[in-house]
Every structure is written in C-alpha cells, then in structure tokens.
C-alpha cells in the first residue's frame, strides 16, 4: 500500500502488548467485572465504530481508493482506539480488551506463519486447465484445508491455481477458490477453520466435527463445484491458442523444506494450556508458547527461504500487513457488537431454535469474525440447557445431549465466512495476491451481490432445508 508502515505497525504492536502485559487497568477492572458483570454491557452506540469501519472497508476501495489506500491503517487503528478507550476508561473493563488482543495476536501469528512459510514454496503445475481439472484441483484444496487450515491451503494453492488457468483466468476462478478452499472446505476438522478450533479448545471432541459434519460438507462442496463446473465450461477464452500448447502434466515443487515449517505451525496450534496441561501459560504476557513458535517460524522461514523462490512468488509482507491493520480495528470494534449479541442470546435463548442459530451465526460470521460469533452462539445454545461454555465437562455434556445446535453453529460459522471478503482471514489475502498477479477482482459489493449471494445463499438455503429445518 501507499504508506510507509515499516516502523509504525511494530511500534503499535509492542505498545499494545506492553499495555496488556503490564495489566495497568487490571486491579480496578477485576473487581468491577466480578461484582457488576451486567453493568459492563456496552452502550448500543458503541457498535457505531464497527459499522463505520465495515462501511469504509466496503466503500473505500470503490469510491475513494487513493484516500483509503493511504489512510486505512490510521482509520482502522483510530476506530479501534475509540473502543479501546471506551472499555478501559469508561467501562473499566480491561479483560474484554485484553482477551480480544490475545485472540488477535493468535490470529495474526497463525496467519502470518502460514503466509510466510507457504511463500517460500513454489508449486509449478504444467497441466492444461479444463473445467474438470479445475474441479479436481478445488476439491483437493478443500480436502487439504482440513489438514493445513484454510489459510495454509489458500496461500499454498492460489498461485498454482492462477498459473494453471493463466490463459483463461477470470475473477470467478478466484471467487470459487475463496468459496471452496478459503472457507467451506475447512469445515471438517478443528484445524480447518478457527471457530472449530475454539470449539475444540472449549471441549468439543476433535473428531466430533468430521463425524457430524461430513454429510453436510460433501453435498455443499459438490453443489458449489457443480456451479463452478457449469460456469467454467462456458468460459471459452483462449481455448484455441492453448490447444496447440503441449503440457507435460507434471507438478514440480520447489522449497519443499518449508513444508516442515508448515507442519510445525500446525502442530503448534495444539500447544495450548487448555489442550496440553503441561504447557505453561505466559499470562498476562499477551503471547503464549504457541504464538512464540509461530512468530519464530515467520522469522526462520523467511530468513531461510530461497531468494529465487521468493522472487518468483513476489513475496511481500504487504498482504499480511493489510490483514493485520484492518483486523486490529475489526477485532477491537466488534467487541461491543459481540457482547450485545451474546447478552441478547443468553437472555432470550428460549426464542432461539436451530434455524435462528444457523442463519444468525452465518450472517454474523459473514461480517464479523466467525470465531467469536461461533463462541457466543455456542454459549447461547448451551444456555438453553443451563450449561456453561467455560466448563469443558459441560461442553461435552452439551455435545452428547443434543448436538443439532452445535452442528448448525459449526457449519454456518465456517460456510458463511465466504460471504464477504472480510468473513475469513484468507479471503483478503487471496484477493490481494490475485490483484498483484494482474487479475481485476470485484469490489466488496460486487463480490457480495454478484457472486456470494446468488451462488452461495441458494446452496446454504438447501443445506438449511435439508439438515436444519
């Protein structure tokens, strides 16, 4: 982007880290949170910074691109700071801000480590692009998204996918890639998408997801691939010129050692005091052992990457910086919205049924971060049975009691991340890499109204009618 951010972002990160690790407001806020939990509910007006940020993200690149590109980091941080000051100074609620900052650090640690490690891998696919080959590629990506996460799979596969289609690439190729590999594909394991991982940390058994979701995942993937096949079959661009080119069908991988880094990142995901009791908690320091490992991978994989591969991948930290800047604002400003939703869900939980859980979790996951949305609706669903999401044994009891709510929340939190560019972390990064490759991607609204709603909503409607109605 058009701004020198070399020093600013690390400084901000360190500054917030110091604030939260020295816990300067904790003494007072502990008492307040314990004694008057209801009083810490934010004002409805504090949802405004979040709404403003979402509107700016949606309209900035479209109507005032120059201004937005120059100033979005400042705007995002400014709006986030309004929420931060409100919570720390007016609500005296240190914990909500500390908690969201820790979640943000984990989010960025995972995304950046997968981004940098996969940036050192070059996959060359010398294969003719056909609708069937693309379908198989996207299916493969959707499956491995469950092993290396939607972020890892997106970063690893977007370049070879574009290169394979270079003679007939259109924005819809990238959009279906976002639908399938960056989102829906990762619904089968807790590694696939962050909300499912949070569920796993809270006590949902690791294999519960695949056992209970595969039969929803499979037809959804099949339907999206069917639509893709139909659209791609009608793309006759450059079919004549590519007919004369000979393809070896070979897949060549350079920088394979970076797969080791990817494996370390994936294993590090489990290094959490909630999963492994021997893992020390470094609280109140905002980094855990997991995040330290992940940030070390960022350093090591970049330092040891082959320069020619980085050059071929045009490696640049900008896409991850863009995510880091926008999401610090999103994470902070969404706290009041999430707390109000959680409060409503807990008070009015008798009004909530499977349909409400499916659509509300889904629609909110499309515009908010899907991880806290998942957690809040899980909390509300458990509230129906007077169970507490903070107690692992009760989560397990909830899963065995009636898991249709959990199924609805899990599926929609992951699936609906594909509805907007901001629904899931990798969406933005895939968009940015594609634009750097010369593909003109649709605007926020064009993505939403021209692709996501017409293609995904009918499919999600079918999912709801068949499985959750």
């Amino acid at each position, binding site marked *: *982007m*058009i*701004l*020198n951010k*070399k020093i600013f972002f690390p400084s901000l990160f360190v500054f917030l880290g110091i604030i939260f690790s020295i816990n300067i407001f904790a003494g007072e806020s502990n008492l307040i949170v314990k004694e008057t939990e209801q009083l810490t509910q934010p004002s409805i007006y504090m949802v405004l910074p979040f709404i403003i940020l979402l509107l700016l993200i949606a309209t900035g690149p479209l109507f005032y691109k*120059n201004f937005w*590109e*120059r100033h979005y980091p400042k705007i995002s941080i400014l709006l986030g700071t309004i929420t931060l000051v409100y919570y720390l100074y007016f609500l005296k609620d240190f914990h909500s801000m500390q908690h969201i900052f820790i979640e943000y650090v984990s989010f960025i640690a995972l995304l950046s480590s997968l981004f940098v490690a996969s940036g050192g891998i*070059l996959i*060359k696919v010398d294969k003719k692009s056909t609708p069937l080959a693309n379908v198989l590629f996207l299916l493969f990506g959707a499956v491995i998204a469950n092993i290396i996460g939607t972020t890892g799979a997106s970063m690893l596969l977007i*370049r070879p996918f*574009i*290169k394979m289609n*270079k003679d007939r*690439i259109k924005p819809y190729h990238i959009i279906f890639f976002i639908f399938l590999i960056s989102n829906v594909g990762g619904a089968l394991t807790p590694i696939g998408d962050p909300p499912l991982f949070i569920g796993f940390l809270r006590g949902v058994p690791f294999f519960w997801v695949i056992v209970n979701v595969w039969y929803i995942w499979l037809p959804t993937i099949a339907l999206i691939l069917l639509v893709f096949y139909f659209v791609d079959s009608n793309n006759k661009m450059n079919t004549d010129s590519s007919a004369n080119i000979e393809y070896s069908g070979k897949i060549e991988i350079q920088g394979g050692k970076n797969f080791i880094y990817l494996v370390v990142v994936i294993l590090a995901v489990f290094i959490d005091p909630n999963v492994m009791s021997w893992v020390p908690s470094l609280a109140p320091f905002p980094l855990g052992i997991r995040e330290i490992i992940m940030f070390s991978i960022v350093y090591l994989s970049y330092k040891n990457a082959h*320069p020619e591969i*980085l*050059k*071929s*991948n*045009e*490696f*640049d*930290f*900008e896409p991850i910086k863009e995510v880091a800047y926008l999401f610090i604002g999103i994470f902070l400003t969404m706290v009041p919205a999430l707390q109000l939703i959680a409060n409503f869900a807990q008070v009015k939980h008798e009004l909530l049924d499977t349909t409400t859980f499916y659509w509300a979790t889904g629609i909110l996951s499309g515009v908010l971060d899907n991880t806290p949305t998942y957690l809040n609706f899980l909390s509300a669903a458990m509230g129906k049975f007077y169970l507490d999401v903070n107690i692992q044994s009760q989560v397990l009891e909830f899963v065995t009691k009636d898991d249709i709510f959990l199924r609805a929340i899990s599926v929609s939190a992951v699936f609906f991340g594909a509805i907007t560019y901001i629904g899931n972390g990798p969406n933005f990064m895939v968009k*940015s*890499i594609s*634009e*750097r*490759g*010369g*593909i*003109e991607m649709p605007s926020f609204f064009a993505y939403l109204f021209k692709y996501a709603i017409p293609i995904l909503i009918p499919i999600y409607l079918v999912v709801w009618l068949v499985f959750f109605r």
Partner: protein
Amino acid sequence: MSTIDEILKKKQNGLYYRRRIILPFNGHLVKVIIEDNILTDFSPSSKHIYVKEDKGFMSIYFKEYKDLEEDITKYEAIKIVIVEDGKDMFNLKNHRKLALYLHGNHELKIESADDDMLFIE
C-alpha cells in the same frame, strides 16, 4: 536506441528516482501492475500514472507514491506489459511482459517476466 531484446541481453538497467522510473527504450504501455494496483488508463488525466516519452528513453511517474523505495520491497516487481515502438500493437506476440526491480542506488533492474511469475495480462 536499443531494443528491449538488446537491453535484456546486455542486462542494462533503468533508473528510478523517488516516484519516477526511467526505461532505456521507447514503447506503448498496455498495463502496469504496482503492488495490488492494476493500471490501464495512461491518458493525461490519469490520477495514478503519467508517462513521458523522450528520445531513447521513457519515464513513468507513479503519482500516488512519494518514494517507490518506501513501498516496493526487494522481491516485489513493478510489472509492465509494453509494445516496443514500431511494432504492431495488435499482434499479441509483440506484447512484452517485463518485471522491474528496484535494485538500490537508483538502479532499476529490467527482466523479462518468466513463467514462474504470477502475471496475467
């Protein structure tokens, strides 16, 4: 005046000064990709880019940038699609894809964009 092929063969560099790059040949730009900005409007009213042709070289000014060095990192290329002066614009085989790297000390490294690079015209 050298042709693009000669420039590439001799590994001759261009130059850059803050927001301006100077290429040691003349041609018609078709597309420029700088970071995630895709530029195809090279009219004088463009807010993003200004192209100036001189005898034997051409200058491209990136109006939104103060100093390219601040934003374009060492593995990142400014990518251009260009048709050399005198060549048929309508023959796609004449559309040359070049990758330009800021090499430091005002030197702009000019390379032919290879197949490994993600570069869609």
